[in-house]
């Protein structure tokens, strides 16, 4: 019965959802990370203004999560092509698969960038506070952030690979 329901849901719904989630969730994660690190950075810079220029790197790492989402969303939406429903009222398997692939790809990059953004944000906030106390700590904590932002990269790579198999025509 469920198979019947899913077969009749338009794959274009899934595809559109995928594009939306790709950019929506990624930007949400990036924004979350930026406010986490930004509020600590602004406060710590009152006493130790020297930390501002170096700690903008944390903000840039969060921003990268959003950029991954934009790239993926653009790639995904170019994949979507208009193919009419088959003569028997059923979508062909190829089109269904393509719809699901676009959805999966978007969800993949969206969720991974969401948590990557939060991660980099929390670490970035601690980095700003630690740097204000002792400037030798900055580079060491930056390494942690680099590993954190690699998570978003994994999401993009897998999303691109999935979307490569999404062929509507």
């Amino acid at each position, binding site marked *: 019965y469920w198979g019947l329901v899913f077969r009749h849901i338009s794959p274009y719904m899934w595809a559109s959802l995928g594009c939306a989630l790709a950019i*929506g*969730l990624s930007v*949400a994660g990036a924004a*979350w990370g930026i*406010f*986490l690190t930004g*509020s*600590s*950075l*602004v*406060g*710590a810079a*009152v*006493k*130790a203004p020297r930390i501002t220029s170096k700690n903008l790197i944390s903000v840039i790492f969060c921003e990268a999560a959003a950029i991954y989402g934009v790239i993926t969303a653009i790639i995904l939406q170019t994949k979507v092509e208009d193919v009419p429903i088959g003569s028997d009222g059923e979508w062909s398997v190829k089109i269904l698969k393509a719809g699901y692939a676009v959805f999966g790809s978007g969800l993949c990059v*969206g969720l991974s960038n*969401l948590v990557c953004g*939060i991660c980099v*944000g*929390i670490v970035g*906030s*601690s980095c*700003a*506070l630690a740097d*204000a*106390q002792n400037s030798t700590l900055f580079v060491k904590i930056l390494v942690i952030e680099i590993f954190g932002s690699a998570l978003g990269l994994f999401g993009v790579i897998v999303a691109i690979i999935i979307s490569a198999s999404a062929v509507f025509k």
Partner: protein
Amino acid sequence: FFFSCFSLAVSASRADKVAMSWLSTTAEMALFNVKSGFLEAIVRGHKLGLLTTADYSNLSQCDSLEDIKLYLTGTDYGDYVQNLAAPLQTTALVESCTQKLVDDWAYLRENAGEPLGRFMDYCVYGHMIDNVVLIVMGTIHERDVNELLDKCHPLGLFDSLASLGVAQNVRDLYRLVLVDTPLAPYFSESNLASEDLDEINVEILRNTLYKSYLDDFAQFCKSLGGTTAEVMATTLAFQADRRALNITLNSIGTELTRDDRRRLYSNHGLLHPHGQAELAAADDFDSVRAAMERVPEYAGIFSRVGAGEAHALDKMLYDEEVRRAVNSFEQQFHFGIFHSYLALREQEIRNVMWISECIAQDQKGRILDGIVFTI
């Protein structure tokens, strides 16, 4: 996305178990900065400006109060001490340092959201209680109210403080003035006796108010949950135990009965309830020491105090308080650092006062005995 936000928010509000789930830990970290991230960073910046060991050793080599003032203009206190007129008094120096604390605290309090604002209010109720007792004691000794207002701690001022002089007994005190202040809930039937105010009653009043306040504060922190609850639980437990110790030591040999003494001890802390029972029965310093040494945390402090040296205990307790305050800065995303900052700043002001007094009275050899390093 909405689901993850929702689940984080729900677990943030449920983070009152001691062992938090990973979800509530993440939630606390991810949502704390919304309201309090900026202020936390400001407080950590203030902590950067506390006087270091090097500063204290330089200060102890000063020869006069003018030198001290000159040195302090190069620290965070610069703006506040540089306009002090000669001839310099210790009280003027200490007042200007306290003014810096008051201004910092006012800035933080203005910008604080809830529940941080309420937490910060709780931090200063102790000073309010001290001010109330100061005015009432002064009125008993027939001092001028305005003089007394000058001596009050600025962090504990409230509007109706000056009108405390009119009260004749505790019930009037409560009914006329204190019912409108945040101290109102700390009065209960047991201490609203209509006896006239005299020295002993006022001391007992101070201690019962403080007990209710500490219990209330502990309850509030517990309801906040998360790291704040953890950090403040240990801090306030130490405060409660310390007050129990001081009450015991001060009431040995006085008319305070054991039951009365017991009633002044808080309802939390490592000594509650068994250690407190032993303390209530103690009659001299050695039995107090025996009671305290049963608690592993305090055994260390007491082992460093020689037999019969009750006066060195004060410094040990301040040491311990400062140590705990500094340790609370190791964790991020909790309100405990605000309370700790207050404690550290006040200790620093006490240090400056001690150093100034030693130098003014030409007793430089005793400087190191009295200061507690806050870094």
